[in-house]
């Protein structure tokens, strides 16, 4: 749809306020034979119930749940249809209703949106959103083939059979259109691998240099292996409540706003349209950007689904200027290029100037140019490149990380040597805290599928 009618642009509004109070996760690994899938989800669920300082006994909290939304990307990977039923039974939640949510890489975000809808509508007072992926039942190349079936099977899958090859053409067009050096992309990889170094849950931590990234093996030109996300096994969960229950359970709940957008599965089919403007943008900003011959919006450079989700959620949550109003973002850095593209979509920079979010230092925990805190740090969790992409869990894991940051619990969930030990690791001697300041109020996360086929943008707002 290129032109909109009034109803299409209605801003979503909950029937009652919705809050997130607790999160849980496992560590993420390439290969995780120690546990079956449902056992991993149980570990994330127990983490949620037992370790979030909730003001009720874990089993009493469980007794409040009356709905569950489960995220799983691909039945191919699990090799088990109705995995939701196995997990739900294993968590001891029968006969409460649950729904399986499947929107590719945005599955986690969509599961949170679904659980929020249940609470907002009154179906549930307390809803569980949990997600998982087990990507280790097949070898890496077969895993990449499975993922590539999330491209059009008739017209695209056979041309790549690996998802990096659907993002790499975007990287080349983006670099050409907006004059971006590959060093900027490499800096994103360096940053997110480094932040993963401080996380006990991370699969691909590392202290790399820009040269290391650019010298790593090529997947699809210009995307190198160190610019690509992990293929993971693991699970995550968050607990979503109405206002009354939220304050019964914790003194530190975060209010939740979340919206979604979609666009074609094939980038080929994206037709030019006018840029939907965010609250802080004006038409003048883009009057010259798409006048070049062959230029299109969103073209291969941007994601309409991300822009549309942000367009809705900023209005839903009253965000006027994302860079000023947000204290943390967790973006879907499946590839360095998709991270870079998203900076424009969600308005951290105007379209065409995305690279400045990195080069200015705003995206860092500590701005490398000034030595002071970055204005709006990105992916302190380590993101998909550094920490995890157990696809159905990802958007839920990001939500939990945003929650813990706003609750001032980064150290509790990342710095405790017992957590490192629990996952068979040793806390690094040079571990450092990436806790955002106490005054921080709002965090945003993006959950993103395909080449931008489904995207949710969620916002958590400190409510105490």
């Amino acid at each position, binding site marked *: *749809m*290129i*032109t909109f009618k009034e109803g299409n642009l209605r801003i979503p509004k909950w029937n009652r306020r919705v809050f997130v109070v607790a999160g849980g996760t496992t560590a993420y690994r390439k290969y995780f*034979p*120690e*546990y079956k899938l449902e056992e991993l989800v149980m570990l994330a669920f127990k983490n949620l119930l037992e370790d979030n300082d909730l003001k009720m006994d874990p089993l009493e909290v469980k007794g409040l749940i009356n709905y569950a939304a489960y995220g799983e990307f691909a039945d191919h990977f699990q*090799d088990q249809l109705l995995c939701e039923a196995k997990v739900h039974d294993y968590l001891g939640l029968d006969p409460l209703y649950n729904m399986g949510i499947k929107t590719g890489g945005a599955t986690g975000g969509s599961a949170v949106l679904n659980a929020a809808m249940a609470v907002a509508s009154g179906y549930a007072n307390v809803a569980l959103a949990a997600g998982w992926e087990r990507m280790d039942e097949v*070898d890496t*190349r*077969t*895993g*990449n*083939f*499975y*993922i*590539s079936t999330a491209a*059009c*099977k*008739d*017209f*695209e899958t*056979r*041309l*790549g*059979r*690996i998802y*990096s*090859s659907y993002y*790499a*053409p*975007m*990287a*080349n*067009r983006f670099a*050409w259109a907006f004059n971006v050096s590959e060093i900027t992309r490499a800096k994103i990889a360096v940053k997110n691998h480094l932040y993963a170094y401080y996380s006990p849950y991370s699969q691909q931590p590392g202290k790399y240099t820009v040269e290391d990234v650019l010298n790593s*093996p*090529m*997947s*699809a*030109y*210009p*995307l190198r*292996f160190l610019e690509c996300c992990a293929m993971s096994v693991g699970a995550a969960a968050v607990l979503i409540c109405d206002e009354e229950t939220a304050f019964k359970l914790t003194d530190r709940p975060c209010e939740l706003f979340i919206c979604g957008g979609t666009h074609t599965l*094939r*980038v*080929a*089919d*994206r*037709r030019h349209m006018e840029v939907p403007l965010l609250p802080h943008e004006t038409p003048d900003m883009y009057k010259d950007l798409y006048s070049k011959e*062959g230029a299109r919006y969103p073209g*291969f450079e941007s994601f309409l689904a991300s822009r549309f989700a942000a367009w809705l959620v900023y209005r839903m949550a009253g965000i006027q200027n994302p860079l000023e109003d947000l204290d943390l973002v967790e973006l879907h850095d499946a590839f360095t290029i998709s991270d870079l593209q998203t900076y424009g979509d969600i308005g951290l920079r105007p379209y065409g100037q995305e690279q400045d979010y990195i080069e200015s230092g705003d995206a860092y925990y500590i701005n490398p140019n000034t030595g002071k805190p970055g204005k709006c740090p990105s992916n302190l969790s380590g993101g998909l490149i550094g920490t995890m992409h157990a696809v159905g869990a990802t958007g839920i894991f990001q939500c939990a990380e945003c929650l813990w940051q706003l609750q001032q619990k980064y150290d509790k969930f990342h710095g405790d040597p017992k957590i490192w030990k629990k996952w068979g690791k040793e806390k690094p001697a040079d571990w450092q805290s990436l806790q955002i300041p106490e005054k921080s109020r709002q965090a945003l996360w993006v959950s993103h599928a395909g080449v931008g086929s489904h995207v949710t943008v969620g916002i958590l707002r400190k409510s105490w």
Partner: protein
Amino acid sequence: MANQKPLQKKKRPPKKKFQMGKKAQEKKETPIKLIGQVTKIRQTDPATVIEWPRSITHIHTYGKLSPFFEGLRKGELLDTHCPNERCPENRLWIPPRAHCPDCHTEMVWKTLPNPVIGRIYTFTEVVYAGTGVELSTPYWQVDVEIPGLATIPKSYLLYGKPYIGMRVKAEFRTKNPTNTVLDYYWVPYEGSL
């Protein structure tokens, strides 16, 4: 209907007591055989991990888009367009669609006259590909702008080195076709338009 015989009540045969047939009786005495393969244990530490090999064939229809793939076998690139004059979108579609996404009218087919010349919009070199890749790696995957199209279809460049704006000509794999989208590809074009 006139020739139809009137319905007759079938006479039910008298009820027989169920008796196990000779074969079944023999089977009962023979234990059930395992006809599958013995599952291989891959590892036992830290948990038992087994292998479960399988081979499957999917039966997939091209549906209303079948003419596109038939066209490729004949060395022609077919597109669809919306014939509704009131529809805001009258450009051509490759990949084709049977229905217009804007007004839902059934689309009509058109053959692009050869030679089909396009320009590379963007590209990548696929170096590491997933299982089942059908082109020898590394290869150039290209997205090509074709005049008159609403879309920028993905394909591959048979030889040469692509760059954004490079002119290319469509060619076809009419001998030993794969009956897939791989049956058309692009080659560098330096002739006049």
